[in-house]
């Protein structure tokens, strides 16, 4: 029956097409199928990358198409590496990445560990915890801006209720010391569930018999956690750190919506600086060089990290 159907389909193939296809090898057919993807990848990823590398050595400005494009050699790179503002932006980014990852990993793993206890209603709570990461960053940024409002914001009122400090004095987004933390809080609120999910997958992958063997050996809960749970979940935790690290290194939307890089340049992370140079100051060559430096930094760090991750997995 099946053969008859395949046969009828083969017969239904128009003769000219059938004649063409009949001559293609398996390898050729494979290339035929993947070539649209490769072409798309070349057009939207590889070509722009090489184009940006070329532009990074020039004085090109996208808003001055009639101007002669000069080759500057490494001048853009030298200028960036000597630019104090760029280094401040990189420090701000590092501060932001460090604290968000630390908080998200700690809270995410704790939540995963709790959810893994399989208490009554754990499925419901898992869904509730996942809600923030399902929201659009634009929505999250906007409603947190209102929550942080010192005159009408619930966050200010909650802090005021606990600390007794008047709500109008709690200007999370205007205060130089608090503004970076306001972004860290929102990012942690939004993305901790993501870390939790990955950690939960790690915890669920630990075979039950290992714990049973540990029980037989009369290992305490604390000992089981340090000797079984944490080492076996570590590759998953590291994977979550890698994903969040890469994401937060190029964080743009939340910072742009909450503070726009302010007050002053307190929360101006590298991606905001890059956007300002590229699309507000129109220094296309200069910003291309900065983008390449950021790309190399992320790529290099991610590679080192992946090697470390592989070592942990092999242990």
């Amino acid at each position: 029956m099946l053969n008859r159907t395949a046969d009828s389909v083969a017969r239904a193939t128009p003769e000219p097409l059938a004649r063409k296809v009949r001559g293609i090898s398996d390898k050729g057919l494979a290339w035929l199928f993947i070539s649209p993807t490769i072409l798309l990848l070349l057009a939207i990823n590889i070509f722009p990358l090489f184009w940006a590398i070329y532009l990074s050595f020039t004085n090109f400005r996208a808003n001055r198409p009639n101007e002669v494009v000069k080759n500057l050699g490494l001048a853009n790179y030298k200028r960036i590496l000597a630019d104090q503002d760029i280094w401040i932006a990189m420090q701000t980014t590092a501060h932001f990445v460090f604290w968000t990852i630390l908080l998200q990993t700690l809270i995410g793993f704790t939540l995963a560990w709790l959810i893994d206890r399989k208490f009554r209603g754990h499925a419901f709570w898992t869904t509730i915890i996942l809600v923030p990461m399902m929201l659009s960053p634009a929505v999250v940024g906007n409603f947190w801006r209102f929550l942080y409002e010192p005159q009408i914001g619930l966050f200010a009122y909650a802090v005021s209720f606990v600390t007794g400090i008047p709500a109008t004095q709690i200007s999370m987004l205007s205060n130089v010391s608090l503004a970076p933390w306001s972004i860290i809080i929102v990012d942690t609120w939004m993305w901790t569930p993501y870390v939790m999910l990955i950690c939960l997958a790690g915890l669920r992958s630990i075979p039950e018999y290992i714990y049973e063997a540990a029980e037989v050996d009369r290992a305490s809960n604390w000992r089981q956690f340090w000797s079984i749970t944490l080492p076996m979940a570590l590759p998953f935790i590291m994977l979550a750190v890698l994903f969040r690290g890469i994401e937060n290194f190029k964080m743009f939307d939340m910072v742009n919506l909450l503070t726009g890089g302010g007050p002053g340049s307190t929360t101006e992370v590298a991606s905001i600086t890059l956007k300002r140079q590229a699309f507000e100051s129109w220094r296309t060559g200069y910003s291309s060089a900065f983008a390449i430096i950021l790309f190399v930094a992320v790529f290099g760090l991610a590679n080192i990290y992946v090697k470390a991750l592989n070592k942990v997995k092999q242990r």
Partner: protein
Amino acid sequence: MKSTFKLALGLASALVASTAVSNVAQAEDLTLCWAAWDPANALVELSKDFTKETGIGMKFEFVPWTNYADRFLNELNSHGKLCDLIIGDSQWIGGAAENGHYVKLNDFFDKEKISMDDFVPATVVGYSEWPKNSPNYWALPAMGDVVGWTYRKDWFSKPELQKEFKEKYGWDLGPPTTFDQLKQIAEFFQKREIDGKTVYGASIYTERGSEGITMGAMDVLYSFGFQYENPKKPYEMEGFVNSDKSVKGLEFYKALYDCCTPPGASNSYMGEGVDAFKSGQVAMHMNFAFTWPGLQKDENVGGDKIGYFVNPKGPDGDQFAQLGGQGISVVSYSDKQEAALKYIKWFANKDVQSKWWSLGGYSCLNAVVKDPAFPASQPYAQTFLDSMAIVKDFWAEPSYAPLLQASQKRFHDYVVAGQGSAKDALDGLVKDWTEVFQDDGKM
């Protein structure tokens, strides 16, 4: 079968005919690009007359202020055909002229007998000319605008507040004429209980992302003695941008921000200012004049409750105000330049300009603003006229964007984030601007 065939044929013909008709209509439609704000709505209303007169339909592409420059400069830089007409910001004129984005209008003005002498001189220099003060016109002055102030007339006239103010400061509470007076009033109202509500002194521009804090700080700095360059030697900025007077001006702006603005007003521009005033939070409010018609009509704070005053004088009696507003230009990449020029010709007409003012737009035509009835035509008309007489504008160089970004950063770092001193900020600004002009080969 026959009737089915006829029906199909009829439908097909109707489809072809309707497509053809809509193509004809589309070919005649003009797209006008501008910011999304109250005057744009007035222009939509006004443009209906143009369509009635000429049969040319009008479409509009309005973008919020915060994305206005990004969106339309991208469009112009990519030689896009979206906009046939554009009402571009005054600072774009240098770049748009030098990069060939706008059609030069001199020949058209000569042919149609449109004279720039018929327009308010400051708006011609600010919105139309490049190079500045040369008879090279790239736009028709379309929307006059300037930074001024509104105040709560009802609060200012409360007898108990007047008495207390007089006792404290020794002069009658009223619209300030100097910046010192403005600060005293702002301090007086800061955190005061009025009608059971805590209110604040003033709303000023502090926005970081686009141009807000520069427009606000410059509005004060000009009257304190700030100059962009040596009047005798172009692009020489040392001692002018960072003069002692400029430093005092910037220190004043920071003091005003620190003492007298509402909590959390660290990223406030036109919209936030209007919100603060409309919600009864502030006694005074710095904003462009385009916001005044809307505020005047507001049920809670408009009518008799609102008053207007010109940007006050600095310590030496100098008085200037930041120019806003725009000219209307024909985009050189448009395929409908003839129709677009027809619109410009129509818009320059005196009757159209009078209607433009009555609908909430700010005409720049002398015949409208110098009409004896003009000052009494709206409660804010005289303040607008007085303000337009003292305007100064930011750099309109082709590199205005990096120049603006530098001032945004330097001012925000000092005024809002409190980093460094006013002198550091202005020295840094001289350094940044010098780099930009060196890159441009102008220094």
